[in-house]
């Protein structure tokens, strides 16, 4: 299963970069097979029969939230940068996450980095350490409400 997952990722990237021609598909498959044999033992993700469903949920439930938050955060940056006196109340806070698995945590940390006023610095066990421009809560639970709750709901449904 690991081999299939690696092959699919490599082949998809190749075809997207090279285009849909018969020669390119054949060469891409050959290169992907060779690379799969070399690389598969370094890979620690896998796919199963629910993968297409998860991908659809990811694209239609998660990406709109993510894009909207990214635009909001850029407006926030613009507001801070262009105001004469920059409003800041910075601090490092710790929040707890229920997500298991490396890829889920990576997605959550990346989402936090790209949302308004927060930047994830480190992950340790089930805690994320986040730098925020405007500290709102005192405890990890309060901060979780402000920072990661909206993503955890969606991501929790995708990565179990």
């Amino acid at each position, binding site marked *: 299963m690991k081999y299939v997952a690696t092959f699919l990722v490599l082949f998809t990237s190749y075809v997207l*970069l090279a285009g849909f021609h018969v020669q390119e598909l054949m060469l891409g498959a050959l290169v992907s097979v060779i690379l799969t044999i070399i690389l598969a033992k370094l890979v620690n993700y896998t796919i199963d029969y629910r993968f297409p469903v998860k991908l659809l949920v990811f694209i239609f439930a998660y990406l709109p939230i993510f894009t909207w938050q*990214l635009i909001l955060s850029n407006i926030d940056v613009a507001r801070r940068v262009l105001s004469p006196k920059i409003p800041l109340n910075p*601090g490092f806070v710790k929040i707890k996450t229920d997500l298991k698995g490396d890829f889920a945590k990576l997605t959550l940390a990346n989402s936090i980095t790209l949302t308004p006023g927060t930047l994830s610095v*480190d992950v340790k066990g089930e805690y994320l350490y986040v730098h925020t421009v405007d500290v709102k809560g005192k405890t990890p639970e309060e901060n979780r409400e402000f920072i990661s709750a909206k993503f955890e709901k969606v991501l929790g449904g995708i990565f179990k």
Partner: protein
Amino acid sequence: MEIVSYIFMIIGGLFYLLGGLGVLRMPDTFDRIQAGTKATTLGAFALLIGIGIANPDWLLKSFLIIIFIALANPIGSSALAKAAYKSCELPKNLVQDDLKELFGGEDNGSN
């Protein structure tokens, strides 16, 4: 169609400009990293979508580049922030510092 693509490219350029201004104007390292990361991520997205619309052959390629940027840009900024926390002097106006328990105290030699 061409006009739409130019609008996207101009938006991307504007966000890059904002990111540069943010890096100049923000008072400490971490706020600079924040401004830089966000503005350049959305700026790159808008630019690449604009290029993809202007030249539909490249649309899939630009989406692939967008995926790579979306994965790599936040990771890079996290690594920068972690390194800055370990090596630089912290800003004076911190309200709260939970990261201290992870590394920063003298009792923690493993990091």
